[in-house]
């Protein structure tokens, strides 16, 4: 459906994208996730056609829309766009905004399609309202309806929820996901908020410094990050020093971890370059550690953050390492107290030091 091949872009001497590759299948929702300035918005604008591509190729439905001397203007790409600030036309009411791109439809057909779209986003009652009379969430849905109305081949969403309240964000992102799935829309969104990304997308690309670091499912990004940047950017966790015993075992302060050792250490079936005795950093997520009063392994509470249902404790290990652990909030321990913990690691993630 959407394919980016070696897409590179630079402004002057500043290289914004350095060889981006990605593939999105029909009906999938993809996401580019990364800190600001990582090039994700540029990628989006290249796909939409607002920037001219310098290097590489962009295919849409097998058609070359950019690259190799070709540049299909934005108005002929049939790529819908939901802008960060929604960019609703302030001089048009909701119905006229939604109907804006339906030039080929007239009269009853036009009204019919606008009505369909407003029903889809649950705003049938607001057809005559003007954008400034709507709440942020409503504006968002009008923007979505407007972009979907002309049946685009691909829908792009640029930080679609960033201008909304936090509570609204989560609710809307799930709603939007349902609408997209229901309509079978192929979509690519761009965001710096991983909750948004994980709530919406089937495939997420972690971007940094103009490169997609890893293009994977949210589950894999969390549990099997490809490199330190991804490990650090996605979720919480700490890196503890460890020593490889063999290709299936690594020893850290908390004991010996068993499992395939992936990551940079895992070069072609085993730890070829990182044999016995090799020093690594092992990623320990808060959910890799369980609080267990019966455990002989004690750690001191150094900091605690109340999260409602649970506490996030930062613990100091006997030899000085630090880990984080999520504990149900009825286990209320004081700072300085020693509590028992035990390891419960499903996926061993280790990076060579």
């Amino acid at each position: 459906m959407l394919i980016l091949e070696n897409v590179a872009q630079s402004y002057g001497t500043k290289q914004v994208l350095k060889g981006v590759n990605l593939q999105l299948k029909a009906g999938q929702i993809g996401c580019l996730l990364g800190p600001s300035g990582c090039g994700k918005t540029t990628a989006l604008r290249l796909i939409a056609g607002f920037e001219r591509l310098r290097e590489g190729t962009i295919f849409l439905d097998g058609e070359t829309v950019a690259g190799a001397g070709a540049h299909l203007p934005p108005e002929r790409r049939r790529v819908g766009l939901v802008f960060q600030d929604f960019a609703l036309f302030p001089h048009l009411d909701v119905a006229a905004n939604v109907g804006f791109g339906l030039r080929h439809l007239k009269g009853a057909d036009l009204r019919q399609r606008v009505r369909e779209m407003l029903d889809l986003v649950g705003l049938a009652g607001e057809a005559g309202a003007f954008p400034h009379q709507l709440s942020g969430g409503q504006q968002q849905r009008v923007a979505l309806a407007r972009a979907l109305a002309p049946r685009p081949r691909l829908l792009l969403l640029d930080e679609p929820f960033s201008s909304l309240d936090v509570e609204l964000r989560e609710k809307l992102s799930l709603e939007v996901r349902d609408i997209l799935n229901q309509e079978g829309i192929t979509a690519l969104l761009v965001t710096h908020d991983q909750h948004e990304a994980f709530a919406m997308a089937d495939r997420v690309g972690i971007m940094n410094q103009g490169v997609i670091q890893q293009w994977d499912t949210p589950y894999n990004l969390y549990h099997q990050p490809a490199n330190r940047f991804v490990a650090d950017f996605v979720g919480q966790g700490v890196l503890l020093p460890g020593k490889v015993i063999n290709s299936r075992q690594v020893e850290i302060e908390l004991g010996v971890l068993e499992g395939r050792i992936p990551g940079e250490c895992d070069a072609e079936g085993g730890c070829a370059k990182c044999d016995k005795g090799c020093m690594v950093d092992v990623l320990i997520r808060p959910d890799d550690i369980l609080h267990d009063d019966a455990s002989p392994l004690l750690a001191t509470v150094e900091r605690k953050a109340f999260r409602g249902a649970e506490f996030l404790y930062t613990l100091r290990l006997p030899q000085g390492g630090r880990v984080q652990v999520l504990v149900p909030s009825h286990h209320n321990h004081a700072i300085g107290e020693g509590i028992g913990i035990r390891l419960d690691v499903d996926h061993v993630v280790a990076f060579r030091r």
Partner: protein
Amino acid sequence: MPGLIASGRLAPWLAAAPIALLTAVPVLVVLSALAHPDQEIWDHLWRFVLPELLVNTLWLVLGVGLGVTLLGVSLAWLTAACEYPGRRFFAWALLLPLALPAYVTAFVWLGLFDFTGPLATWLREGHGIMQLPPIRSRGGVILVMSLALYPYVYLTARAAFQGQGRRLLEAAQSLGESPWRAFWRVALPMARPGIAAGLLLAIMETLADFGTVSVFNYNTFTTAIYKAWFSLFSLPAAAQLASVLIFFVFVVALLEYQLRASRNYAASTRAAATPTRIRLGGWGAALATGWSALVFGLAFALPMWQILDWAAGVFASDFDARYLEFAWHTLLLAGLGAVLVGGLALVLGYAQRLRPGAAMRVTARVATLGYALPGAVLAVGIFIPVAWLDNQLIERLSLDGQVLGGTLLVMLLAYCARFLAVSHGPVDAGLARISRGIDEASQSLGVAGARRLWRVHLPMLRVSLLGAAALTFVDIMKELPITLMTRPFGWDTLAVRVFEMTSEGEWERAALPAAAIAIVGLLPVFLLIRHADHHAHT
């Protein structure tokens, strides 16, 4: 009562009310002429004068309205949203015609088209073309005034186009519209309030204009007021005419006010961070550059060059003691006026700050209504009560001749009424930038009242006040009808000199005082350009 005044509760009102009276009295005086029509005068006017005036005014407003919209919107769109050779230069240069009063542009064009003028001579000798289209015609006035007044529309339309950013056009493109169609469906409808605001200002200037139409012998209300007063010596007839004109002006001012109050959607969308422009190439670029250059040339470069050229020619003979006297009168009048108007604007703005509320808003609104009132109307409206006051004084105190009439005081009062809005704008904006927190901080440190104004607000307002005074200075310098009608006998300024020389067809000799006006007039335009640039970049 004294307690109230001392505690400062009434002081803002005592300060603001007289300022509002300065405008309200002339307006009421003129309107009362409408309420008590003199049957004889009215019959004469209705039969011989008004039909022509109404038709002429209507044509002028329609023609200039269309002209300034065409010029202003097209150039604003090109410089705000497109990229073509020379765009950066034209973006600011197209504001320069604001420096030339319309009556100056007018006499240059008349001079050029004159049988002995350079253009006519060149065409006759070089190309054998004997007959030029008559410039002293309805079309000629409309063309010249459109060239002089289009910057109003250009300025507001450009701000509107820039404020939209590119985001909404991109949205239109992503929905399948070409950039050209996106302009018609999105950019233009959205800029409508901005365009209309500039258009209404231009129409107000058109209705207020006296210099241009009298140079062209094109009869409108302002010229008729002047003639009734100074040729027929009938102040009542002048007042009747003024009362009709003020009616039109109020219609336009009301429209403008409503527009300003209802302009709600310009600010609802943030401007795009990256102003990518539509790149014009080939014919498009050539047309854009050509059009910009043509308008710039006709509206500014050509008249300016011609003025300087003529002025240089007569410099040796005309730059004498009399010329210095005109310049001194102008300087004195504009200087006094600027200080006075700036001071009143500060007092009014400060009263609004101390006593915010609906009543004070209305007071300020009345006080700043003068920008809509034609100078000819104000001159009549102020002269009548002053003459009455003079008569009272003469009778009661058995004095000889005029006391107030024909003094600088009358002129200055009229200037205050006319130009208070010019100063009030920047001062008000400056005051609005000073947060209430500053006031409270100063108060908590024991500095309040007049001392706070002096030690805190004035230093913070310095730049705004200077800007306000500079704008007013130049406006007074360019002002013609008030100066012409209320000046002390024989007391001529540069503007009056331009008018007199123009009336006699002495283009070269009119050019010398006009050059001084035009050059000083460039100053506020440069300030405006810097201001506009600053806003575009933040």
